């Protein structure tokens, strides 16, 4: 952010500002722990449950399982405990974090774990001397030595109860269970507690894989489910915090620049006399509950993605505020003007166009338009490529030959694959027909499909014939040329 008082903030600067505010909470809190405490929202019930479980952890020796969908905030939730030094000291707890994503590979992850365990033993003043050099060849031996050491050590010497937090194990694509087996010996030990965070997919995989894994990690454990929250409130908390004029606000210098300058955002706020973002709700501006609920729906309630979308949405609304449709509604017998974000705007938000908005920064989200990029024969490039991925499963000569018959050159196909595999391109919808007035919301809901990776685009569209009926045909099917 530019802090020069005379310079007018540009949309690029807004972009930086909002992207900063919507960053991952844990990334932000690496710089300053205060930011975490300020921005963490709710989860009081779950936290109280976790605290009560951990209070009895010493005597019971039970493991804990935290379940929730992707991007629901499982890691952030556990870090609330890890950052709570007062509680950890009071209850004599010591946290060891095994974060798979932070390590470069599995061996690195285990080596880091062994290092952390050594630190733990030094911390409780019972250092372990029997470990051999910590390198990839000795990992199994060292893990066995550690397990035996915890077993043989006098319980009174374990001054702090060990809590091992296994995080991001969902990202292990191959050989998950042999990796998880390294922690099985620890999980069965009653002198320590394993805290595993898992998505429903991982939970089911463990439950059906082997009975012993299931008993230690998913069945005989204390389970905490991370519930969904209102996306609007979550975002409000983020933005409201930014706008608080308080010395303790870690974002004060950024908020000052935005609010004290003559810019669309501050003008918007001044116009309505709004002091913080939460107050915007009562004016029924486009950033209202329905809009964010809609966002939740298209992202399957993944808050990480909602933050990405919110970033785009707010910038879009700021940029197009004057263009937004106005309706008049009566609230308590008083007519109130409301700005409404129509379905067309929602689409415009995600589709590529030549507006000024697009030039300012690279949008995080993009919609794949199947009616875009047609060959000379008017066959859709994306549609045919997706079909070919599904049929051939690999990019061999047959794959390219089939697509060449439909008029797509290999270079274009490669470009299309790159776009489709990009994780930020998640939604498929045509942008040509979307008459907002004649269309029910349900139609949009049915048409949007969230996908995880490029390869799964077609498989996730369950109502494919319905799609073509509504939005027109995408040209010839690849099945005609195979």
């Amino acid at each position, binding site marked *: 952010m530019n802090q020069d008082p005379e310079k007018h903030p540009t949309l690029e600067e807004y972009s930086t500002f909002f992207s900063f505010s919507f960053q991952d909470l844990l990334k932000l809190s690496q710089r300053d722990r205060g930011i975490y405490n300020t921005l963490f929202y709710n989860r009081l019930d779950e936290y109280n449950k976790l605290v009560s479980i951990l209070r009895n952890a010493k005597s019971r020796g039970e493991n804990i399982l935290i379940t929730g969908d992707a991007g629901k905030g499982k890691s952030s939730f556990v870090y609330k405990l890890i950052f709570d030094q007062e509680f950890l000291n009071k209850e004599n707890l010591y946290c060891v974090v095994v974060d798979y994503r932070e390590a470069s590979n599995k061996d690195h992850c285990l080596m880091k774990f062994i290092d952390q365990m050594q630190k733990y033993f030094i911390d409780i003043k019972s250092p372990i001397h029997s470990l051999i050099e910590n390198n990839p060849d000795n990992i*199994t031996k060292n893990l066995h030595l550690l397990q035996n050491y915890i077993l043989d050590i006098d319980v009174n010497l374990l001054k702090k109860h060990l809590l091992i937090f296994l995080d991001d194990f969902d990202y292990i694509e191959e050989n998950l269970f042999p990796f998880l087996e390294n922690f099985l010996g620890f999980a069965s030990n009653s002198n320590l507690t394993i805290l595993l965070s898992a998505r429903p997919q991982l939970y089911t995989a463990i439950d059906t894989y082997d009975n012993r894994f299931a008993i230690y990690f998913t069945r005989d454990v204390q389970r905490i489910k991370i519930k969904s929250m209102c996306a609007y409130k979550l975002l409000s908390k983020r933005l409201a915090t930014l706008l608080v004029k308080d010395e303790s606000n870690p974002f004060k210098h950024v908020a000052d620049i935005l609010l004290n300058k003559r810019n669309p955002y501050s003008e918007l706020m001044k116009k309505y006399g709004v002091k913080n973002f939460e107050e915007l709700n009562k004016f029924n501006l486009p950033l209202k509950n329905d809009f964010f609920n809609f966002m939740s729906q298209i992202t399957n309630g993944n808050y990480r993605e909602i933050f990405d979308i919110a970033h785009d949405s707010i910038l879009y609304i700021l940029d197009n505020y004057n263009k937004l449709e106005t309706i008049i509604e009566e609230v308590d017998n008083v007519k109130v003007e409301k700005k409404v974000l129509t379905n067309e705007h929602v689409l415009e938000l995600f589709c590529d166009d030549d507006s000024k908005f697009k030039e300012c920064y690279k949008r995080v989200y993009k919609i794949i338009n199947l009616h875009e990029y047609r060959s000379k024969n008017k066959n859709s490039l994306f549609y045919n490529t997706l079909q070919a991925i599904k049929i051939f499963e690999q990019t061999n000569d047959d794959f390219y030959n089939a697509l060449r018959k439909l008029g797509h050159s290999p270079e274009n196909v490669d470009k299309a694959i790159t776009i489709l595999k990009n994780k930020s391109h998640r939604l498929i919808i045509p942008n040509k027909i979307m008459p907002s007035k004649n269309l029910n919301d349900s139609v949009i809901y049915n048409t949007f499909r969230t996908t995880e990776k490029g390869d799964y685009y077609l498989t996730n569209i369950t109502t494919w014939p319905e799609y073509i009926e509504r939005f027109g045909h995408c040209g010839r099917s690849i099945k005609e040329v195979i």
Partner: protein
Amino acid sequence: MRIIHLDILEISYILLYKYNLKRVRINTIFNSLKFKNPSFYKNLSFCQARQCFIELFPIYKNKRKKCRYFKISKKTYNAHIQHHSVNLRPQSDIKEELYDLIKPPRYV
């Protein structure tokens, strides 16, 4: 079916299908259990391991007092898996160290 039973079944699987053995000494089972999960089998006695083994393979000869080599069979193993609808991990996921440990001395 308890966890120890599942572990013994897995060891029996390796002996039966990997090494084609039909007789085993309890010492092999005992050591393998201790190696697999030292914390869980910290207080496991030789006698307990023998008792659990006999529960799984209740053949008359196994129950005898002075039995040294205990019999295992694929039929009983499969019956347990089907009857109790047990989920055991695939053979490919079993660690190589366990194979080496279970391997009887004459195979080394």
